[in-house]
């Protein structure tokens, strides 16, 4: 069924079709309409789930952990400060190997207080053991939520499905909403190998001494590596069922491209227009859209970027003190290539706190990269210049 819906609505439909059994969530702009829609679906009987109202995101995740430990398919959604507040339990959920799915609407962290998009909230959860998928469209959101449950339940790791605040969460577009029957065939009911059982009491997450702890962490890492193949397999299977296949990353006009732009989420839609325009003008540019960020598809990036002349990574985030995060990761992956195949790589940080990244911005940054006019390893885009760096860095003038 085709419907014109918001990105947040797409999340709700994905969760409904996945037949989540427990939704434990706390509202926060710009996530709120996700859980409002889900609450209404539960109230209307469209979704047979327990909707748990909680007093904080920390409790929201605690509810998901409890539900998932008992073998229920659990979902929550949040943004920015809410995700940060969950952080302790974000670690717990992954360490407990619970296949929870969380939708995070990318919102800039405060202060200064912001409700607009950037990726620092989700990327701050990079090292928790969760998988992360960045979506470009509402269609991808519906599809990815359903896939996320499947992959998570296969590898026993939780997944964050990420969408941009407002650019995606609150814009309407035409979406094909899969039939329930199709999803039921794709995503079987959850059967966890190990769950709370009143008949056989056990303590979960108990103390582990140094002689065993590392083994559990090694298994998490193996699960992440294993998940790369599972994401590919599941994305292919989804394509066979719906005609919409997904991979770890997405290439656009990379054939013959000597300069490849890497970016994620809605900025990629803008970049497509620019790539078309520049190709028409005879400049050999291409686009790679990062989709699955954890596990990190290093091989896939090496395969698509190795041997190019130049790579430009557009980050809507910053690891303060060292580049944008996608830039870091891609650079580290490419370092394993033979020297001759290593492209020149530059990073751009743009669009923080919801600032627009326009086609003109992208065209300008690609042109400068192509002409070798990006001197710094990382360039902060569209930001006031610093005349005296020391004075500019100080708290007040």
């Amino acid at each position, binding site marked *: 069924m085709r419907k014109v819906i918001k990105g947040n609505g797409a999340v709700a439909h994905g969760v409904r079709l996945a037949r989540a059994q427990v939704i434990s969530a706390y509202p926060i702009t710009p996530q709120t309409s996700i859980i409002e829609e889900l609450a209404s679906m539960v109230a209307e009987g469209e979704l047979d789930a327990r909707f748990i109202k909680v007093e904080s995101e920390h409790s929201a995740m605690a509810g998901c952990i409890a539900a998932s430990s008992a073998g229920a398919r659990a979902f929550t959604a949040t943004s920015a400060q809410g995700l940060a507040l969950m952080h302790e339990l974000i670690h717990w959920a992954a360490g407990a190997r619970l296949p929870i799915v969380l939708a995070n609407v990318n919102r800039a962290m405060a202060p200064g207080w912001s409700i607009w998009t950037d990726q620092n909230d989700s990327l701050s959860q990079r090292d928790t053991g969760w998988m992360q998928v960045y979506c470009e469209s509402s269609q991808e959101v519906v599809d990815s939520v359903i896939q996320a449950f499947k992959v998570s339940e296969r590898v026993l790791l939780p997944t964050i499905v990420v969408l941009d605040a407002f650019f995606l969460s609150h814009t309407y577009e035409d979406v094909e909403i899969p039939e329930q029957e199709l999803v039921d065939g794709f995503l079987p009911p959850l059967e966890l190998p190990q769950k709370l059982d009143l008949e056989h009491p056990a303590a979960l997450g*108990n103390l582990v001494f140094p002689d065993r702890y590392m083994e559990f962490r090694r298994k998490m890492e193996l699960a992440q590596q294993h998940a790369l193949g599972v994401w590919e397999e599941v994305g292919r299977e989804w394509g066979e069922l719906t005609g919409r296949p997904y991979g770890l990353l997405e290439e656009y006009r990379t054939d013959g491209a000597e300069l490849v732009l890497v970016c994620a989420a809605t900025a990629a839609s803008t970049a497509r227009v620019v790539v078309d325009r520049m190709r028409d003008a005879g400049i050999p540019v291409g686009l790679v859209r990062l989709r699955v960020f954890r596990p990190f598809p290093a091989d896939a990036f090496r395969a698509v970027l190795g041997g190019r002349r130049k790579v430009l990574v557009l980050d809507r985030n910053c690891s303060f003190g060292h580049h944008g995060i996608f830039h870091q990761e891609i650079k580290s992956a490419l370092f394993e290539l033979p020297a001759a195949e290593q492209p020149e790589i530059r990073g751009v940080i743009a669009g923080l706190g919801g600032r627009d990244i326009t086609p003109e911005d992208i065209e300008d940054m690609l042109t400068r990269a192509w002409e070798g006019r990006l001197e710094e390893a990382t360039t902060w885009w569209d930001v006031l210049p610093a005349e005296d760096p020391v004075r500019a860095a100080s708290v007040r003038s």
Partner: protein
Amino acid sequence: MVEINPRTLDDVPATSYSDHATTAIKTGTWKYVQPVYEDKLPACSHRCPAGNDISRFLYLTAKGDLLEAARWIRRGNPLPATLGRVCPHPCEDECNRGPLGGAIAIHMMERFLGDQGAAEELLPERAPATGKRVAVVGAGPAGIAAAYNLALRGHEVEVLDDKPEPGGFLRTGIPQYRLPREVLDREIALVERCGVRFVPDTRVGRDVSLDELRERFDAVLVAIGFHGSRPLGVPGEDHEHVYNGVRLLERILAGERPELPPRMAVVGGGNTAMDVARSLRRIGVEPVVVYRRSRMEMPAIPTEVDEALAEGIEMVFLTAPKRVVIEGGRITGLECVKMRLGEPDESGRRRPVPVEGSEHVVPVSGIVTAIGETAELDMLPEPLRDGWRVAHDARFATPLEGVFTAGDVATGEGTVTAAVGTGRRAAAVIDAFLRGEALPEEAPRVQVLWGRQVRLDTVVHVEQLNLAYHKEAPRPGIEELDPAVRVRDFSEVVRSFTAERAIEEARRCLECGTCNECLNCLWFCPDVAIHKRSGFGFDIDEEHCKGCGICVEECPRDALTLVEVER
């Protein structure tokens, strides 16, 4: 338990778990505070002059165990059916349910439970006979309460009274429409069955001397109450149609129907004034209540005033008598002066001041005085007389060895409930005296006599409750006979609760400071360290309770306390 000794990662579980219970971890060693089950004093019981264990008998009622509740209320209080009818119930002013739908109708519950059970079911256990003998002088509420408690403690008790039947003021001063005589008779009969002997028509100082009693008995309790009446102090009050309210009421309540003038002034604003006026109304006399202050200052129980007004009884306020107007040997009126309220006096009420030139005549042909009762102590030996009261110390002991006192003649509190309370407390002191134990410095508080562990230094007010658990629920209405019907005779005005209504009302009780096994603590304990006993209550597994305090926080009624662990 399965021994896990993996050789490869394949055999390591996905996450850490133990098929042992968590009991292996002694989380109890972490604590520096720990919860203890500790019932506290509910605000209602704190205010009960008779020391009723209200939350406990309501708990038993809520469970549907009406007989056990009836037994519980009779522990130490022999007159619940009576008190439930006549007490002004200060407990309800304090009830923490007040803001959540209205106070529990505690007096209706006391009355209901007082009416429950047959004598043989209600007979409490008596302590082994001590061979000691006690004479109680006065068979009013204080004397009955003391006699009952002393008998239950194994002593032999005789209650002497100058009236032909026991009950004191309950019989001579409280009209049947408030306290039916079969209710009183039933309660007194129960006291008799507990071994108390009532000796009628015997007045100390006339038929027997106090010294004689001291010789024949091991202890004597003087609880003779207030029966004297204050004079009006106005010219003409010696006229034959100026009646002493207490005496007139006694005659009417005993069934006499004296020839009375058709319209009479009842002077006073207390309960006796209300009882006289309403009783007169019931025998065809038209009363008009004359009170020198305003309605707000009336010492009568407010509901009694409401009921009197509903019965069409005329009241004139801020009016004080000055002279009985007698024409041709007959009373034609009561000359009064209007009053206004001045500065507060020692009772805290504003003192009435005459308004000059406001003299007027209230047309009546008879007058009843009801301006307060006093003790009549003339027949007691000198050392016992201390102004209006019997001399005594904080233990209710008089200057005479082995002679104690209780009730109005001791404290002058003026309610039946207070009389019962002092009777209970004096009985505890006399018991210690008879057993040759050291007397306490003070008579124990009446709540000490409950026979269950309650921390009495902490009164539970609404701030101590977890209001998240208490929803608003309305107080039930109390049914009364229609005023037009009830003034025809002395039928009881207020109708009792049905058992169904009583149980429903008991369930509204918040059980302040009183564990009622709601199980919240057990469900909330994150360490499964709280275990239900096979009998009443819970045990805390000290080895595993880590002192988080969640049970204390989630207890809806403050029946748990967090205390520091001593190390």
